[in-house]
């Protein structure tokens, strides 16, 4: 190869896109032709600059969360468009009716309660959705040392992830959520086929003792500890759910 006007080939050579024979021909040419050798060196330096200058842009975690939520919403509305009846199991109507009833009830209550109840029903709705949409976990792993680091860079806090298998709660994984206008971690545990979602996010203020509630046939238990808000939700009975909160607060 003696035609050094074929500039494109220099780049293909640099990018490892030439076959063996052509590469060897080009290398022979580079030995003889100082101009081309200089060009290759210069473009190699350019390519390395672009690569090593860390010029990639990172999407903000909040955007990532918003987008995930958006996609899930679209998924839900897609489902309903095709056939609401075919896609939803019978009990989802009960849940929907309960939601409506709850919304109606909420309306007449005072504002503070209104907000709290909204949060609770948002948490319950999230829990239900996690069971329905085959989207229980973003990271499916029973190892706390895999689940916890998975959240790094996706949330602006480190969620509490514990191995509770000795207390008969098996760690299933974790999931990103967007609740009450901010990013939240959902850690998923399993006890005798009952799924427990433990939602958590930073919340300033003093610690609060666990409070047990029931909403739409689910039990919830919320508490605050060390600047974090926690809410566990499940169809487990209240005693077993209290056991989980006691274990997590230890």
């Amino acid at each position, binding site marked *: 190869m003696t035609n050094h006007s074929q500039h494109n080939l220099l780049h293909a050579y640099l990018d490892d896109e030439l076959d063996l024979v052509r590469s060897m021909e080009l290398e022979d040419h580079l030995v003889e032709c100082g101009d081309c050798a200089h060009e290759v060196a210069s473009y190699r330096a350019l390519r390395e600059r672009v690569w090593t200058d860390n010029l990639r*842009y990172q999407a903000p975690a909040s955007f990532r969360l918003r*987008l995930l939520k958006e*996609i899930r919403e679209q998924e839900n509305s897609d489902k309903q468009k095709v056939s609401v009846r075919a896609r939803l199991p019978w009990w989802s109507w009960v849940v929907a009716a309960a939601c409506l009833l709850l919304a109606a009830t909420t309306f007449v209550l005072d504002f503070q309660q209104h907000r709290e109840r909204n949060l609770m029903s948002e948490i319950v709705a999230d829990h239900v959705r996690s069971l329905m949409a085959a989207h229980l976990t973003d990271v499916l792993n029973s190892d706390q040392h895999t689940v916890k680091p998975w959240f790094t860079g996706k949330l602006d806090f480190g969620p509490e992830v514990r191995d509770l298998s000795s207390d008969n709660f098996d760690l299933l994984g974790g999931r990103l959520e967007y609740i009450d206008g901010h990013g939240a971690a959902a850690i998923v545990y399993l006890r005798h086929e009952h799924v427990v979602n433990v939602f958590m996010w930073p919340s300033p203020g003093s610690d609060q003792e666990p409070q047990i509630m029931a909403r739409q046939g689910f039990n919830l238990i919320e508490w605050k500890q060390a600047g974090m808000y926690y809410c566990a939700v499940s169809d487990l009975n209240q005693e077993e759910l209290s056991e989980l909160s006691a274990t997590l607060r230890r």
Partner: protein
Amino acid sequence: MGPSADSGAKMARFEAVVLPHFDAAYNLARWMTRSASDAEDVTQEAMLRAFRFFDTFRGENGRVWLLTIVRNTCLTWIRRHLPQQNSAEFDERLHTDLQASPTPESEYLRQATAEQVRRAIEHLPPEFREVVLMRDLEQLSYKEIATVTQSPLGTVMSRISRARSMLRKLIAAERRSEVKQHD
């Protein structure tokens, strides 16, 4: 197994095949729109479109498939919002007297700051900027770039060659304008 199981499976498959390339999608949109908020709009539109058309995905390369959608969304956005995007800026920069400088371009390349390299890439016309990003930041092969840009391999090869030659000149121009400011 009813239809609800199918759509759950769709979401799970989308998360496994497409979502891992979310960062690459955002990066491309961010570079092509040159704005953080526009990049979010474009990425969101592209991701939702990808989800909607995920049924047409035939198990090819998920990254190439997603980037094709992102790139098309970016081009539509550029055509609508920046019809004359930077071809003019570029010409102006290239017509500054290149020959007059005694310093070789590769020397400028060594001295340039990361910020100057970034600005130089931003000043590349879109069709050249995208191949530099896909090749040098995303490490796509020529064949993959040809798929994403829906162009023949030969076109990809000559675009990369031209893009790098422009980029080298632009970095030199960035350097020189800094040196002049200091004089």
